[in-house]
């Protein structure tokens, strides 16, 4: 069920209206929980998927309780390895499936939103062990994990933030203006997802089809047409992805506000970023921040504490590891790994360039450089094109993308 469908939107508006008049916290939480359960019921295909979900959630909550009482890094790491292994099996990563004799059995299990649940689970457990979760409650935890507004594709909300709102769950749209703003955002999200995004997806598919059917030699394609379709695959898929995903986020963020929950924002004009470091604070922000906080920071801290003299250069290794994981997290295919590695290259180049400027011009010179309007425009255009180019490898396999690029190259050169 997609959030832009009537089967999602109509019940949402009905629930929002009922929620507003419910008399107390228990009733409001109860209604929210029933909706979470009903949503899950519609999405989980069979009993084995339910069993796997229960096991996944119970293990997470149980481990958090255990580590809260007896913090132990070895136990945490052991659990995380098992958890990530189970995730790889559920997502059917080729390498793992090749090693599994019971792969047929695993294929029957499908947990919707498991990628997002995994990150929420890790955050919950790590923060609980480090004493950053005030009180543990299985009721709160379950509703946090299966929150229908974040279940399918985020945003990745932090447990503490959810708990703070859940404990006092009440209407947050205090006046007519706030209600109208939420409805408007919902409408904008629906327009983005249903009217705009499909147009750009269609244009992307058309360009991709032309390039793929033109043959590997590109014999039947005029250079001008090849360039035109190259720009088609370069710009239209990023446009589609932004409109589709940010539209989805508009719907769930507005929808959650109807029932008293403020979700974190996931986009902040990403295609106006000045470099790839900036880009990952604006594009799928909650993923970028999660990777930063629960992967990059601990990894770099461990390295910098043990080998401080090499920390500066090993930071680049941490960038690549972080974005490799981000890539693999998107899916088991090689194109996602490549996408992640592209981001690692982009972030590393941005950091190296900043160091070079700092060395050559000093801090004042760097400030002047960053404040220059020309530099700003050039940086934004450069970053936009790097982001678009890396997204060429996102929707299809590497060979397919290379075939399209080869067709363009052969036609033009």
């Amino acid at each position, binding site marked *: 069920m997609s959030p832009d469908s009537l089967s999602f939107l109509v019940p949402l508006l009905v629930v929002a209206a009922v929620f507003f008049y419910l008399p107390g916290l228990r009733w409001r939480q109860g209604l929210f929980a029933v909706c979470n359960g009903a949503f899950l019921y519609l999405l989980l295909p069979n009993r084995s998927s339910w069993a796997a979900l229960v096991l996944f959630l119970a293990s997470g909550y149980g481990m958090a309780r255990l580590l809260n009482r007896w913090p132990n890094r070895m136990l945490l790491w052991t659990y995380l390895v098992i958890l990530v292994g189970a995730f790889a099996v559920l997502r059917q990563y080729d390498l793992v499936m090749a090693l599994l004799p019971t792969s047929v059995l695993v294929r029957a299990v499908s947990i919707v939103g498991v990628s997002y649940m995994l990150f929420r689970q890790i955050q919950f457990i790590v923060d609980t062990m480090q004493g950053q979760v005030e009180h543990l409650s299985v009721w709160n935890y379950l509703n946090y994990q299966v929150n229908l507004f974040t279940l399918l594709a985020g945003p990745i909300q932090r447990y503490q933030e959810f708990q703070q709102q859940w404990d006092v769950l009440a209407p947050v749209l205090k006046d007519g203006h706030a209600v109208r703003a939420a409805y408007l955002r919902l409408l904008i999200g629906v327009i983005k997802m249903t009217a705009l995004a499909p147009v750009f997806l269609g244009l992307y598919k058309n360009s991709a089809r032309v390039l793929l059917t033109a043959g590997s030699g590109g014999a039947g394609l005029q250079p001008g047409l090849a360039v035109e379709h190259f720009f088609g695959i370069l710009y239209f898929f990023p446009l589609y992805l932004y409109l589709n995903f940010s539209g989805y986020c508009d719907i769930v963020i507005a929808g959650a506000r109807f029932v008293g929950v403020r979700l974190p924002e996931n986009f902040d004009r990403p295609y106006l970023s000045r470099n790839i470091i900036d880009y990952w604070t604006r594009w799928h922000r909650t993923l970028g921040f999660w990777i930063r906080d629960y992967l990059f*920071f601990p990894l770099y801290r461990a390295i910098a504490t043990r080998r401080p003299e090499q920390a500066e250069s090993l930071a680049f290794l941490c960038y690549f590891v972080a974005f490799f994981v981000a890539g693999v997290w998107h899916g088991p295919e090689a194109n996602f790994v490549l996408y992640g590695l592209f981001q690692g290259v982009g972030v590393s180049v941005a950091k190296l360039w900043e160091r070079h400027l700092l060395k050559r011009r000093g801090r004042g010179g760097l400030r002047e450089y960053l404040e220059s309007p020309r530099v700003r425009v050039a940086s934004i255009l450069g970053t936009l094109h790097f982001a678009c180019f890396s997204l060429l490898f996102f929707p299809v396999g590497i060979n397919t993308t290379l075939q399209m690029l080869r067709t363009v190259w052969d036609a033009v050169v």
Partner: protein
Amino acid sequence: MDPYREQVQDVFRDVFDDPSLMLKDEMTADDIIGWDSLAHINLIIAIERRLRVRFATAEISRLKENGANIASLLDLVTRKRKSSG
């Protein structure tokens, strides 16, 4: 006056290699050139070493959020030092 302001300021000057850097309560990451994720974790590690405190992952993250500033950092450092005795 925060008891650890001077020490934290020294850490900032070291990390950003800027001896003239003066910390103000309302300063945020946007006010200091180069205060990105890597600089942030370098600051945290240096403060941990200097003041013998240990920050939790969620605390490090909160210090990088919108709204966090030097005052929030100094406040956290003070609380950490107090709780560590």
